[in-house]
């Protein structure tokens, strides 16, 4: 008898579901809301003076478990904006095809110079297209929405709770522009 009851129950359940509102979010048209720390790709944002924030300290290159980051330091120069001496990078390459999205590179960055963005890269026809070079990473910083995590925030989060210590707050342009609406294309 249990069989008959269960059968009737199953038939009832499916029929009830058939008249409910479908939960499908029609992907290319509708973008599903994502968690605050959702992240998919990378960007190299500018610092507060409008220069590239990365100083080529190699911290991210060293910590990356997949070893996908390669950079070439440009040495110290006088900044054309502030006039002070600071370090620059000549090249920065991130191979997204082997990235695991662990965000360690963001976490170790003391100058908040690398962040992850919420919009994924477009699926590529060739493996090389997934290698993000400096140009693409800079473009990402302008076009895409930064994820929650920055070096400062992540490091703060990891520190043991000390009430008296003030947070080392650094203004990050990437996070200030975070609530900006995402471009409709390539958005998830």
């Amino acid at each position, binding site marked *: 008898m249990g069989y008959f009851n269960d*059968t009737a129950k*199953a*038939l009832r*359940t*499916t*029929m009830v*579901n*058939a*008249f*409910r*509102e*479908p*939960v*499908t979010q*029609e992907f290319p048209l509708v973008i599903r809301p994502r968690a605050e720390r959702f992240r998919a790709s990378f960007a190299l944002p500018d610092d507060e003076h409008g220069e590239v924030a990365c100083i080529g300290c190699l911290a991210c290159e060293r910590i990356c478990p997949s070893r996908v980051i390669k950079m070439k330091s440009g040495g110290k120069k006088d900044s054309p904006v502030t006039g002070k001496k600071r370090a620059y990078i000549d090249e920065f390459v991130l191979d997204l095809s082997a990235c695991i999205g662990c965000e360690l590179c963001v976490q170790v960055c003391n100058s908040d110079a690398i962040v992850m963005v919420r919009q994924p890269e477009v699926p590529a026809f060739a493996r090389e297209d997934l290698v993000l070079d400096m140009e693409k990473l800079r473009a990402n910083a302008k076009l895409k929405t930064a994820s929650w995590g920055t070096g400062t925030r992540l490091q703060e989060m990891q520190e043991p709770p000390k009430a008296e210590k003030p947070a080392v707050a650094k203004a990050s342009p990437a996070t200030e522009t975070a609530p900006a609406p995402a471009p409709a294309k390539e958005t998830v």
Partner: protein
Amino acid sequence: MNELVHGALYGTLIATAILSTIAMGIWFERKFAGRMQQRLGPTIVGPAGLLQPFADIIKLLQKEDIVPRDADRGLFDLAPILAVVCSLGVAAVIPFSPSIIASDLDVGVLWVLGIGGLMVIPTFAAGWGSNNKFALLGAMRAIAQSVSYGVPLVLAVLVPVVLSGSLSISGIVAWQAQHHWFAVWPIVPGLPAFVIFFLAMLAESNRIPFDIPEAESELVAGITTEYTGAKFTLFYMAEYVHTLVGSALGAALFFGGWDGPFAPGLHWMVLKTLTLFVLIYWVRWSLLRFRADQLMRLCWTWLTPIGVALLLVSAAWVTFGGTN
């Protein structure tokens, strides 16, 4: 001669109608299944996804036709064609209205059971011809299932035959039009006989919950494991044709076929057939697959004895004059 022309004309018409219904049936099934799982089903291809079955067929016809190296070429090629022929053949004796019938055989019920039973041959031809262990296992399961469920199917079909005293399906429908639908009165052999018929038909057409011959988690895709492109399309169609024709048969045998008030007979027949068709999909997307032993137990310890009892009851009904 006149009969031949009539048969050819109406046969072609009915077959065409069935095959075009199938395309919409595929679309409907995917939509309906989607809604049951709170999905949308096809939406992108054509308005409301209506063109989806056509895209599927166009794609399938373009695919490479692979024949496994050690396959039995003749059987491998013949099986899908036979499958469609056998499942469409049943439709020949089903009256869709008092006049729309391809061939009004006096022994229509025998034809239905015979041709329907022949489905075993393409099934095993496909399983054997593929030279693939999953296909062969699937074919063996399918045959064990078809042969077993043939018995309750025959017993259930015999109930209307005994009650109406006719072996012709149009005769049975005419009798019902004159008196009562068998699913309604006499309710005791009638309605349970329909339930047995329905279950046996599901099993014969290898539909969930009786689809162990193509259980994906165990047998890859059962008998169609090695079939690609056009040949797979034929199997795919045969399955739907089998289901649709089975629904039409159920409507004719138990629900009075074209009999109904206010509208022409064809409307009623189509309405009843499609209702049963939807019912089959409802069952298909709601239930789980039986295990092989459960399947056999259901057949031999429940359906067959009950079928025999129903046959006796209907014989008694006729004998002791409960007919009208």
